[in-house]
């Protein structure tokens, strides 16, 4: 046994169970699903090789196009919405330390509450005839309130709003941790120099929080493409697919229609798009993230 091998052997032995688990339950399925994306396979039958057919169909099908557009619209609402709201909440709580423990918990609560349970409550809030929202609007004299979850114009934004509400507490905690690493003397110096709140926020808070913001941005982007439970419990992708996003469409194809090869191809398209967006983010990171 060489000295180098003798040095690393104990570490490798200790890591072996985790490495085997990672390989068997993560890496092999990831690679196998890539192979599957070139097959027609319903799980219970024999797979048949179809080459690029799944990819070609996805890229030319009107339904897939609609689903990709929905995913983009959802991300455009969810990512900026959740980051802006969590930043505001984190800033407010950071400046109100005495009462922040209660509000921190209250705002974090939706994140750790059962998604299906809270989504059912939102479903009732959005209900057309008996919902809290429309009855509140009627009390204000607005009788022609929309059918939030049954109207293609509002269904996807409604799913995005509930998703933001659910996740904002998590992002807020991440940003709050970042805010608490900023040295207060920067703010004192700026105050002495006469900088107002808004200026202090954009000149001190945002630059010094940029690493946390970058992390939250990446996480929010990934999560925006993974929305499933809220869509499932709130709209089931409807009406007429207007709130079906890519993750939900993958689920439908894999576990309702058992088109596993097609679902695998969809998953790899999602993976490619996410990878591309992440690369773009890392490229622009140099311009706004302060190391």
């Amino acid at each position: 046994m060489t000295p180098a091998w003798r040095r690393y052997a104990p570490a490798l032995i200790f890591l072996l169970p985790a490495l085997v688990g990672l390989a068997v339950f993560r890496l092999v399925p990831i690679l196998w699903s890539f192979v599957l994306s070139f097959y027609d396979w319903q799980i219970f039958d024999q797979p048949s090789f179809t080459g690029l057919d799944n990819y070609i169909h996805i890229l030319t099908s009107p339904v897939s196009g609609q689903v990709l557009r929905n995913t983009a619209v959802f991300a455009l609402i969810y990512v900026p919405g959740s980051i802006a709201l969590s930043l505001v909440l984190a800033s407010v709580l950071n400046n109100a330390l005495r009462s922040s423990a209660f509000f921190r918990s209250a705002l974090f609560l939706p994140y750790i509450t059962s998604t299906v349970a809270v989504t059912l409550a939102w479903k009732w809030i959005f209900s057309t005839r008996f919902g809290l929202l429309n009855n509140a609007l009627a009390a204000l004299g607005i009788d022609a309130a929309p059918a939030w979850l049954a109207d293609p114009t509002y269904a996807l934004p409604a799913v995005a709003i509930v998703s933001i509400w659910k996740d904002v507490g998590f992002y807020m905690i991440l940003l709050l941790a970042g805010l608490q690493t900023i040295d207060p003397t920067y703010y004192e110096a700026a105050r002495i120099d006469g900088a107002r709140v808004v200026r202090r926020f954009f000149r001190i808070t945002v630059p010094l929080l940029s690493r946390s913001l970058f992390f939250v941005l990446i996480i929010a982007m990934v999560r925006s493409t993974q929305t499933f439970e809220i869509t499932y419990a709130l709209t089931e992708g409807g009406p007429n697919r207007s709130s079906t996003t890519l993750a939900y469409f993958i689920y439908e194809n894999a576990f309702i229609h058992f088109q596993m090869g097609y679902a695998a191809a969809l998953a790899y398209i999602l993976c490619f798009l996410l990878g591309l967006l992440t690369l773009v983010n890392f490229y622009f990171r140099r311009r706004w993230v302060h190391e």
Partner: protein
Amino acid sequence: MTLTQHIWLPLVAATALATSMAAAQDTTLSYMMWDPEQLEAERAAIAEFEASNPGVTVEALAMPPEDYWPRLSALAAAGDLPDVFAMSSGFVQSWAEAGNLADLTGLITDEQLAQYYDSAASVGVIGDARVAFPQNWVAPVMYYNIDMFDAAGVEHPQADWTWDDFLAAAQALTVDEDEDGTPEQYGMWLYGRYSHIEPWIFRNGGRLLNDDMTALDPSPEAVNALEFLTSLVNEHGVAPAPAEMEGIRQQDVFPLGMAAMWVDGSWNIANVRDIAGDSFQWGIAQVPVGPDATEETARAYAWADMLAIATNSEQPDLAWDFIQHMVGEGRTASDFLGGKIPAFQAIAESEAWLEADMQPANKGLLLEIGTQPVETGFSRDWSAWRGYAASGSGGMNGELDEVFNGRSELDEAIENFVAYGNDVLTR
């Protein structure tokens, strides 16, 4: 040899001998199905089978459908299917084509077969082979609120009702007391769901698929049925737009007294009993025959829940014995919850199953459906083109809802769901 070896070796040998003897005598039959509540009802029948087959243990497992089909599929891929498993009318064709279902053709005699509803038993015949055998069957029926009918002075639904009779009743039963334009009580409730729509199409002699079930090609009778249903919502206002009922479970609209009539599966009898309780009297009727149908072309809509044997089962004879027990005399009426109709006629026709002391008082009407020509409406990839379960917002369901919600024209919707369906079927 050490003392320890002296003690342990005989013990190990004795244990191995006992285990091998037990293995020779004991047989485990695996059984999987999609309804945990139903499995609890079946426990007594399973125990009875075990008692009459000494040495046989039935390892029964149930999970909800959303978990059942992925799990069963994974077991099929691994070559480890249970000996006996529940099979739906919707999947039987695909599963048979994939070679997962054992051929049962020679196992049952014509005499035995005559004891079952033919409409249910025929669903498990794919090509020339019987690959699954029915346990029970279900059928959409028209639920109607007797109290509302009586209050409006409308005659209860009759077997010879025409669609005009139905419309006249629905109009009389639609009530907008405060005249705000939103009726408090509708005559009818429907949306694009398969069990709301297809009964009207099949009772009008229509078809959605071509003869060999490989392409969507709605017949003129089917289009006429869709036009009639659209008119109920958009022209006559006797049924609400689906958007208006968003947020209410679809199966609760009728039992909550929001609509006087509703067409959906017989399995909803249990839910109507639970929700409505004794708050009103209700009954069931057959969906009215359409104007385009003849006696030969009008069909009922019904399908069977079946049991199948895995092709690679190592004990097909025992598995068949178990199926015979579970679909026949081994069962009691109480095993079939709500509106599930036993495929074995003797149980279906028993007083215990007919439940004359419960609502609906005319449950026997379901048995008439089993003697009629029926259509299951299923094809390969049905869930995708039809829009079913978690895909309910898409396909034909999604397009029809857009029509009922007044955002799309029927012609356009038909064109869209036919194009999408044929894309799915030829993919």
